[in-house]
């Protein structure tokens, strides 16, 4: 099975986020990027499928932030090929534009399965994979916790629903799957292997094709959380405060 995993880089929250003077984007001056968590799981899912059923895994990323590090790490973890799409504007691409770019590249020789994280912390909107499936005219299942390949030409996915419910869905290939989590945590790759990959493997680069960006939501204002001044601070000894807490809970009917 030929699998392509789409890797996206998201802001690393270890640094304080600042709003750019434009008021509609993050200030990228001090921003570092790291691989989106659910994309990390998508890669793990792809590697598990390859180990169980054979095949080939290609990791593909837009050239942004530390994408190269993520791609070398993917190679060190077991991906067969890494592709970097260059010419991406510094501020990045919106999800729909990213889906259009990936779609234009993948249309040339479509793989059997395209895996991507189901959502990323930079917009929490989760539509790269879905939009991509729409553009390629492929079936799409999102929010999966496992993907298996019980027979040729199809995959069996477990999709999560709210309330702890899950469904098993058989999907004909080719298809796009939005991964929430792999059945096991992403494997640790020893740093020696990443360093070796940097010396012995290459990342193929190609210019991101220019595409017509489908219309989507426009950010009018980006702002930090504005806390409402509703917090009530309690004073006194721990015992006094405990009594006050009980009174408050009783007054709101939360305890009997």
């Amino acid at each position: 099975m030929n699998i392509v995993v789409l890797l996206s880089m998201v802001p690393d929250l270890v640094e304080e986020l600042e709003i750019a003077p434009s008021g509609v984007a993050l200030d990228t001056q001090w921003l570092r990027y790291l691989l989106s968590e659910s994309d990390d799981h998508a890669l793990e899912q792809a590697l598990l499928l390859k180990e169980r059923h054979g095949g080939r895994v290609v990791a593909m990323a837009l050239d942004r932030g530390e994408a190269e590090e993520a791609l070398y790490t993917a190679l060190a973890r077991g991906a067969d090929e890494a592709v970097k799409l260059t010419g991406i504007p510094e501020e990045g691409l919106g999800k729909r534009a990213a889906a259009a770019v990936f779609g234009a590249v993948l249309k040339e020789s479509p793989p059997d399965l395209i895996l991507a994280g189901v959502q990323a912390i930079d917009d929490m909107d989760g539509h790269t994979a879905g939009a991509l499936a729409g553009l390629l005219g492929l079936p799409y299942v999102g929010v999966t916790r496992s993907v298996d390949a019980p027979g040729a030409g199809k995959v069996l996915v477990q999709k999560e629903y709210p309330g702890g419910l899950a469904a098993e869905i058989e999907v004909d290939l080719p298809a796009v799957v939005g991964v929430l989590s792999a059945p096991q945590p992403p494997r640790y790759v020893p740093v020696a292997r990443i360093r070796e990959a940097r010396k012995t493997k290459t990342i193929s680069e190609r210019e991101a094709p220019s595409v017509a960006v489908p219309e989507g939501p426009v950010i009018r204002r980006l702002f930090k959380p504005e806390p409402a001044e509703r917090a009530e601070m309690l004073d006194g000894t721990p015992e006094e405060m405990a009594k006050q807490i009980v009174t408050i809970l009783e007054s709101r009917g939360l305890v009997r």
Partner: protein
Amino acid sequence: MCGGACPLAFAMEYTPRHSIYLLKEGLLDQVLKSNTLWLCVSCYNCTARCPSGLKITDVLFPALRDAAMSAGHTLPAEFKKALDNTYRYGNSFGEAPRKRMDWARVAGVPVPIISQLKRPVEALWLVECYPSYHPRNQLQAQAMARVLHSMGVDFAVLGPEERCVGDCERLSGEAGLFESLVEQNISLFDKYEFDEIVTADPHAYNSLTRIYPPQTGRQFPVRHYVEFLAARMDALRPLLKNRVEARVTYHDNCCLGRMSGLYESPRELLRAIPGISLVEMPFARENALCCGGGGGGMWLDTVIWQAAHERLSDRRVAHALSTGADIMAVSCPFEASRFEDALKSTGNEGKIVVKDIIELLDESAGTQGVKPA
């Protein structure tokens, strides 16, 4: 000897000795699948006792962990996170390098950063990760800054450029990560001029004195602060004006003790503080019990608890309590928080106070004497 000396052998599926015999029989996989390799906290007891001189702590266990990682074994989650963090941020906490100097804001004295000084210094102080980021250990870093400042030591720190020295990562079996940290640190040391390196972290001291030189062919003069200050007793003693009326017992940590034989300097510093009387624990000096934090132990507490139903720090505070001391003195950043936690988890909170020697020196040199519990 190694199996008998190991303080966690009772919880291991195979003791170090048993593991060595299995490996001799070619049963590597059996050892890799056991809990043994995650229960080692690099206390060097086995190494110190081995009649054949095998480097069990420095070579065997890291090699086994390396083999487990390379074979794709699932690593304990906290352990994996710490390694990922160290690779990405240069510290196991996953904190921003830019926040490495936050502790210095409330040190009360200037803490110069060497890149800003633009001149050679006498002592390059490697603060290391726990004193830089851990709230309890930041108090130790602040005390150290005040003591060095009052003694008139010409010192500077690396600040946001500093990266972990990598001792625990090395003993965790992450040879590639250690190699990359060594490269980064050597290039930092080459960038600046200083007479010697001073650190408060015995683990950094362990790697800088014993591992960096053969691995890099480079030799940097390094001292732990207990040696550095003990050698400057003439400058230090006049500062120690406040009496600290307390019985104190000193915990010999593994890297300064068993691995480096530094038993006298810490005791000399404690004796220099007026009012302190020293008492020894049942297991002291080369027989001291480890706090359980070394060699990745800080990130393996959950695994170790599941197997052993105790942490070594729990057992060690019992040794300290048995002396009737008021203060348990330490000289390693891992220990203050580990022993304080152990006192709470064993129901002994308030029965003894845990202090780094540098904190006791700071108190004696400061404006108020200490009143232990």
